């Protein structure tokens, strides 16, 4: 049982609720085919960022249409990608001539719908680019990085793009930064259950890739860092940012214990950690455990790393 009238009406009612909680802050995109919100106070003459994905994932995506993040968000029904036409309608509504960047996690439905939206916009003469985030290091084992799915690292990419757009960069440049940040981003899901720790469990019930006996958070953080750093060795001299996402079954105290454990471990590995944050950005019903995300920034990316605050969370 859930606190809603029906699964069908839940998204509509939740967006109405969000708008009541922040009067004047959002505009609802009128559409029969999906759910979209955009900021009421859109900055003038800047590249627009539309973040989007399946519905029902907590602050992702509904809470991401805000200052320092995206200009708009679109989400689909529960566990379903948003419809290409709604993405297209949103882009047409908020574009101011500087073009639109779509950010989404790399899943088949999300990719197809975003790619189609880009083509529909091109037909209308509107510039649009797409960056699909593929930070989930343990998904699609043995395949190219581009084939991987996305976890919560997209939040870090989004804030970098927002800062770049704010500074007046062109669509091409903002898109390039998004791709660069994605290429230097690795995330991992961790969970504990019945005296065991699990790495790489998917949020749609995919089984863990690695399992071991649970011997405390420090051991779990050590293993997590080992997995993440295997692919980040080449950026060891760069600046790292850590983001911990906890599903709502994980408590506040536990979340920060986890953040601390990972930060300590990274330091031991000689990583220069410039910033860390924790929160429930991405949540699924019945979801448990955490996600750990690392971003390695070079000088260029660092220029656009600015804390995003005031949402009940910090990214």
């Amino acid at each position, binding site marked *: 049982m859930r606190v809603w009238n029906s699964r069908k009406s839940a998204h509509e009612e939740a967006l109405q609720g969000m708008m009541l909680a922040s009067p004047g802050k959002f505009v609802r995109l009128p559409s*029969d*085919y999906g759910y979209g919100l955009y900021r009421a106070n859109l900055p003038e003459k800047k590249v627009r960022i539309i973040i989007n994905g399946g519905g029902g994932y907590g602050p992702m995506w509904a809470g991401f249409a805000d200052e320092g993040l995206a200009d708009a968000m679109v989400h*689909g029904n529960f566990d*379903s*990608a948003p*419809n*290409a*036409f709604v993405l297209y309608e949103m882009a047409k509504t908020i574009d101011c001539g500087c073009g639109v960047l779509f950010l989404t996690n790399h899943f*088949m*439905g999300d990719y*197809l*719908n975003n*790619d*189609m939206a880009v*083509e*529909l916009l091109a*037909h209308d003469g509107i510039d649009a680019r797409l960056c699909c985030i593929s930070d989930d290091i343990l998904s699609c084992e043995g395949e190219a990085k581009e084939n991987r799915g996305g976890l919560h690292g997209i939040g870090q990419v989004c804030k970098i793009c927002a800062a770049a757009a704010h500074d007046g960069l062109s669509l091409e440049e903002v898109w390039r930064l998004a791709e660069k940040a994605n290429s230097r981003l690795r995330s991992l899901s961790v969970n504990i259950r019945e005296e065991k720790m699990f790495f790489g469990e998917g949020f749609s019930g995919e089984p863990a890739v690695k399992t071991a006996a649970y011997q405390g958070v420090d051991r779990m953080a050590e293993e997590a860092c080992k997995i993440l750093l295997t692919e980040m060795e080449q950026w060891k001299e760069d600046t790292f940012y850590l983001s911990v996402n906890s599903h709502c079954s994980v408590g506040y105290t536990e979340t920060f214990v986890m953040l601390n454990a990972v930060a300590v471990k990274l330091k031991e590995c000689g990583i220069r950690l410039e910033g860390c944050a924790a929160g429930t950005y991405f949540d699924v019903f019945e979801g448990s455990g955490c996600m750990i995300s690392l971003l390695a920034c070079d000088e260029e990316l660092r220029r656009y790393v600015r804390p995003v605050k005031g949402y009940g969370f910090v990214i």
Partner: protein
Amino acid sequence: MDKLYVELFQRMFIRGARLIIEKEPYLTEIDSVIGDGDHGTGMKRGCEALEKLFLKEKYAFVDELCYAVSTELIKTMGGASGIIFGTMFFGGISRLSHRDYVDARELSEYFLEGERAIERRGKARPGQKTMLDALYPACVAMESCVARSSDVVLLFKDGYEAAVRGAEDSKLMKSQMGRSKNFKEKTLGFPDPGAVSASLWFQAFYETVSEVR
């Protein structure tokens, strides 16, 4: 028939939509065995929306007609098939002139370009048990038809026959794309539901133009 006028083109789409609605139980049946069972209902939803749209809208230009068909399918179908069948009719729009008729060569290029757009977007090729296994042979057949004749009826006859053969041949293939790839060997012996849908469009196109002659 050297020219296909927009009014007849629209009737072809109406007939295709009706045929797919009629065949929905069959599409659902095969997709339930080798996929997640939603292909038939998705196609039906899109085709019903198309029928409804065409009750009130008449198009003056072929490119506008094809644009309306694709966007309606994308809007209403959802999922991967909405994009794929939307792309089938959208990808080649730039090959159509902005006028009230289209000739056989343009039609052939239109469908081929749509097929290429699906390959690119879906990162797929013919031979993987997808709708491309009907669409691609249809495009090849139409391409070779326009080299010999400018007759639109013949164009759709060749396209239709090749599409049906292609859908039939997909029975011998193992799925390598989408959710049905998890069913592997189990997919042998069943045609790909998307390939069947693609062949149904061509069946309706051919039947509509052949009755005019």
